[in-house]
C-alpha cells in the first residue's frame, strides 16, 4: 500500500506541530476569562475597630474627640446634640486645639449605619483620618 502514501509523509513536511488546535483551545480559554472577569470597584471608608484583646477606648481620654451616635440617630459632641453638618466644624475646632487627637465614635447598638457613615465622612472632611469606631449598650 505504499503507493497511496500521502504527501505528509514526505520530506517536505517541515511545518512542525499544527498550531491550529492549540489556538482554538487558547482562544476558548481567553473567552472564558474575558467573560468571567468582573471589574467591581467598591468604594469605601476605613475606620479602626479596637479588638477585644486591645485596651478598650478610654471614655475619659481627653486626647480624643468623642462623637456619640444614639439609637435614634442623634449625634452628640461634647455633651451637646449637634446636626450632621455641624460635626465638621466641631471636629475642625477641636483638632485646632489638639492637632494630634483622633476621633472616637461611640455608636449605640441600634444606631443607623447611614448616620455613622455620614459622621465618618464629616470627620474626614474635617481633616482627621484616625477614626476609631466602638459601640456602647
Amino acid at each position, binding site marked *: *500500500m*505504499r503507493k*497511496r*502514501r*500521502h*504527501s*505528509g*509523509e514526505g520530506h*517536505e*513536511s517541515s*511545518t512542525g506541530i499544527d*498550531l*491550529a488546535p*492549540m*489556538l482554538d483551545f*487558547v*482562544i476558548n*480559554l*481567553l473567552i472564558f*476569562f*474575558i467573560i*468571567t*472577569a*468582573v471589574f*467591581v*470597584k*467598591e*468604594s*469605601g*471608608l*476605613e*475606620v479602626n*475597630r479596637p*479588638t*477585644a484583646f486591645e485596651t478598650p477606648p478610654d471614655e475619659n481620654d481627653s486626647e480624643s474627640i468623642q462623637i456619640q*451616635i444614639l439609637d435614634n440617630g442623634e449625634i452628640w459632641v461634647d455633651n451637646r446634640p449637634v446636626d450632621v453638618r455641624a460635626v465638621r466644624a466641631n471636629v475642625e475646632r477641636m483638632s485646632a486645639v489638639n492637632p494630634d487627637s483622633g476621633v472616637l465614635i461611640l*455608636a*449605640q*447598638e*441600634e*444606631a*443607623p*449605619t*447611614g448616620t*455613622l*457613615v*455620614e459622621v*465618618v*465622612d464629616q470627620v*474626614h*472632611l474635617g481633616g482627621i483620618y484616625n477614626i476609631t*469606631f*466602638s*459601640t456602647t449598650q
Partner: protein
Amino acid sequence: MQSRRHAPETEETGIDLAPMLDFTVNLLIFFIITTSFIKEAGITVFKPEAVTAENRQSGNLLIAIRENGDIWMDRRRIEMRDVRTLMERLHIERPDDTVVIIADRESNAGVLAEVMDEVRLAGIQIMSIAADPGAG
C-alpha cells in the same frame, strides 16, 4: 507503511498561526492575572453616601448587611457565627484579600461592629465600610 484514511489532502499550511498564538496567549495571561475572583454579596443594599469615599482596588470579599440585620455573603444568607469560619477559610486560600462591608443605611451599627469583629478575629485586618461617592 500503512496509509492513513483521513489524512489531509494537502499540506498547504496557509497563514502561519504562530504569531497569532503568541498574541492570544499574551491576552490570556493578562486576563488570568487581572481576574481577582471577587466574592460578591449577592444582594443590593441601599448604601450610604460619603464624599470622601475612596476606591479600593483590592477589596474583593464583599459582605452585605441588610436593614433587618441579615448578613449576605457569596450570594447566600449566612449567620453571624458563620462569618468567622467563612472568612478564615477564604483568608487561608488567599491571604492578601481585603473585606468591604456593605451595610444598608438603615442597618444597626451594632451588627456592623459585630461583623467587623468577626472579620478581624478571622485574621483580616484591612476592611472598609462601603459608601457611594455621591453628593453626600
